[in-house]
């Protein structure tokens, strides 16, 4: 009884994760700007892969520890990578979408030494 409950709970978790992986890829494909794409892709795919690994750990007996370790590792490292990409592309000088209203970096007068040209 408990086994069946935990197993189907894991199946629901994997469904949620797969759906959010698809949503992240759709955001990557559809959104107009690099920073919009980065936000949509990173948030949605992080939730997707964490839910997928927790679900797989619930389905199989004895895998929950490693799956939770994988989930914690992805939760720690994915925002770091996203932050590095955003900082690098802002410093290189990628154009923002015109609808992005306050550009806080420009408002506060932060000057990056090697900005300007588009790579």
């Amino acid at each position, binding site marked *: 009884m408990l*086994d*069946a409950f*935990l*197993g*189907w709970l*894991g*199946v629901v978790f*994997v*469904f949620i*994760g*797969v*759906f959010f*992986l*698809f949503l*992240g*890829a*759709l955001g*990557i*494909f559809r959104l107009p700007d*690099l920073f919009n*794409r*980065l936000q949509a*892709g*990173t948030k949605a*795919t*992080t939730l*997707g*892969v964490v839910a*997928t*690994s927790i679900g*797989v750990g619930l*389905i*199989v*007996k004895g*895998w929950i520890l*490693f*799956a939770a*370790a*994988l989930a914690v*590792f*992805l939760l720690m*490292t*994915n925002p*770091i*990578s*996203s932050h*590095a*990409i955003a*900082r*690098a*592309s802002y*410093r*290189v000088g*990628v154009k923002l979408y015109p609808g992005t209203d306050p550009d806080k970096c420009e408002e506060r007068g932060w000057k990056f030494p*090697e900005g300007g040209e*588009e*790579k």
Partner: protein
Amino acid sequence: MRIHIPTAIWIIWFATVSLATVLATLRGLMGPTNSDRLVALDNWTTITTGFWVILALFFFQFVLLSVAMVYAILSFLGGLVIARYLERGL
């Protein structure tokens, strides 16, 4: 495994993840700048980590979960290195 998973559920999972991979690949092929390609690569590797986890469940091998862990570590390091390269050169 605690339960027996029907075939239709496997087909839905694999089709959805494959569609996500195809969308991310298209963005990587047609992104206007190099940073767009880097964003697409980062999300592609995250999606593929989820795909490894599902494959570990499908083939029922614990080793494939370790493969997913190593894949996540290597993709994280690669993304950091490429971002640093775009920022100021190696």
